[in-house]
């Protein structure tokens, strides 16, 4: 279980203090899939980075399974069970997909197990296991590999920052199935997704709305989702004004 207590995050831009996250109180219970939505620039991704330890809050506390992890590093939080899938996955020259999955697992990993993780995200394992995680992979492929690394970790808390960003429609629909399946096997862990895609909101147990850094609504999907339909906090599929990749509309 993750708890945020009065978490704020402030940056200094052009000599002016700007509060990106303001006094957020939030609980992500075990066995739940929680989606944080809200308008662009509302502080969603920053909140995810605060949870992973990539940014440190200006004030407030982050509690993981009863332990205050606010001052812990990225590494320490990862070891205590926080996984984080980047919005824009990182490329590595020379590191192969299998290497990355092995590092994610943090121990021995068989080829068969690696293949299972890749298959789960809709990649033909045989074609990818030896590929380098470099610029030869498309944005969508990288994104799926990124999600596979989180699956391989099997953490207490898996955080996904806009998992749909940069992937094509076909992959997006498969992605929903990946999250559905994760939800089914959630036992004792929790999933936190940053997204404003209606299809993702639709598989949430709980929805949290973040606007201008503040938590403005929170509750069961059935309660919150109807209030968001038609707003930029619940976008249906991929907008047509987004760029395309390989002829497909990119989310």
């Amino acid at each position, binding site marked *: 279980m993750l708890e945020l207590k009065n978490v704020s995050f402030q940056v200094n831009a052009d000599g002016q203090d700007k509060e990106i996250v303001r006094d957020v109180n939030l609980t992500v219970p075990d066995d739940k899939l929680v989606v944080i939505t809200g308008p662009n620039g509302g502080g969603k991704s920053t909140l995810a980075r605060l949870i992973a330890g990539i940014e440190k809050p200006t004030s407030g506390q982050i509690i993981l399974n009863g332990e205050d992890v606010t001052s812990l*590093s990225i590494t320490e939080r990862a070891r205590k069970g926080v*996984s*984080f899938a*980047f919005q824009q996955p*990182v490329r*590595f020259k*020379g590191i192969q997909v299998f290497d990355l999955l092995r*590092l994610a697992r943090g121990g021995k990993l068989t080829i068969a197990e690696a293949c299972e993780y890749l298959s789960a995200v809709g990649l033909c394992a045989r074609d990818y296991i030896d590929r380098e995680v470099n610029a030869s992979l498309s944005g969508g492929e990288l994104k799926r590999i990124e999600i596979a690394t989180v699956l391989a970790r099997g953490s207490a808390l898996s955080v996904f920052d806009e998992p749909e960003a940069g992937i094509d429609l076909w992959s997006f629909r498969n992605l929903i199935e990946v999250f559905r399946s994760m939800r089914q096997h959630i036992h004792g862990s929790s999933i936190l997704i940053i997204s404003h895609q209606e299809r993702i909101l639709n598989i949430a147990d709980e929805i949290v709305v973040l606007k201008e850094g503040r938590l403005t609504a929170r509750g069961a999907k059935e309660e919150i989702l109807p209030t968001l339909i038609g707003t930029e906090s619940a976008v249906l599929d991929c907008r047509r004004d987004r760029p395309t990749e390989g002829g497909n509309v990119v989310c």
Partner: protein
Amino acid sequence: MLNWKEMDEMQKRLLDEVADLHEIPEGAYNIRANSQSAGRASTAHIEIIPREDGKGLTVNIQPGTKNESVHIPVVMTESGLKELVYNDFHIGEDADVLIVAGCGIDNCGSQDSEHDGIHRFFVGKGAHVRYVEKHYGSGSGTGKRILNPGTEVYMEENSSMEMEMVQIKGVDDTNRTTTAELGAGAKLIVRERLMTHGRQNALSTYVVRLNGDGATADVVSRSVARDHSYQEFDAKLVGNAACSGHTECDSIIMDRGKILAVPGLEANHVDAALVHEAAIGKIAGEQIIKLMTLGLTEQEAEEQIINGFLK
């Protein structure tokens, strides 16, 4: 014949590092230890002849020899040795062989140890050679470990050569010069991997002349300069015919390392197509952060990134 059991443990360890040898190799071999031949064997198709002055070898590979290998590693464990050897390889037409060279120096003394090897390859028509050369240094002494390899490659029509040159650890000073002359249809591929530490210096110079129509060359170097080390990569392709060539230097710079990359292209024929790429930069912060989110420390993340880069 070599008596493996008589080699000391340090020499065996160096052989493992530079030639992946855990026992007497199959095929033709010559193992040079502390400036003396510690064992040599020829085969029906590959003849190794020592030079009369004891300073090197002539290796004759018969035309049509297939799937055979030659191992000629050098190990030095005595401080203060300095040697210059000349090894000539004559690879017959249509042969297809693996040649493993490499030098390991362990210097626990205060005097410099130096091995300078001049290798010349005469690659016959249609022949294919895979050449692996690893350099390694170890030892706690103040004496330097110095390696200055010179490689000359002469490639006849439609021959091909793949060269893998690796120097990852422990060599204080290296000045490596590689030249190649390619005939029509010849193909040269070079993959160099280099890492320098401490106050090491590494200079690597390539001059590849594409002299015949259809000749191709691809020279790629990946390197990491750590601590106060210095690297210079100077790769020049010369297109004298309707040919194509590509050279690339990709480096990670760390700490107070310094790197100079000097890719050079010279086209003397209107149908010569030559390309060079060079990039130097530190490890991207986001790469380290990503691996830290997988539970690695910052230092472990750096090591993984470097290991992958140099793999």
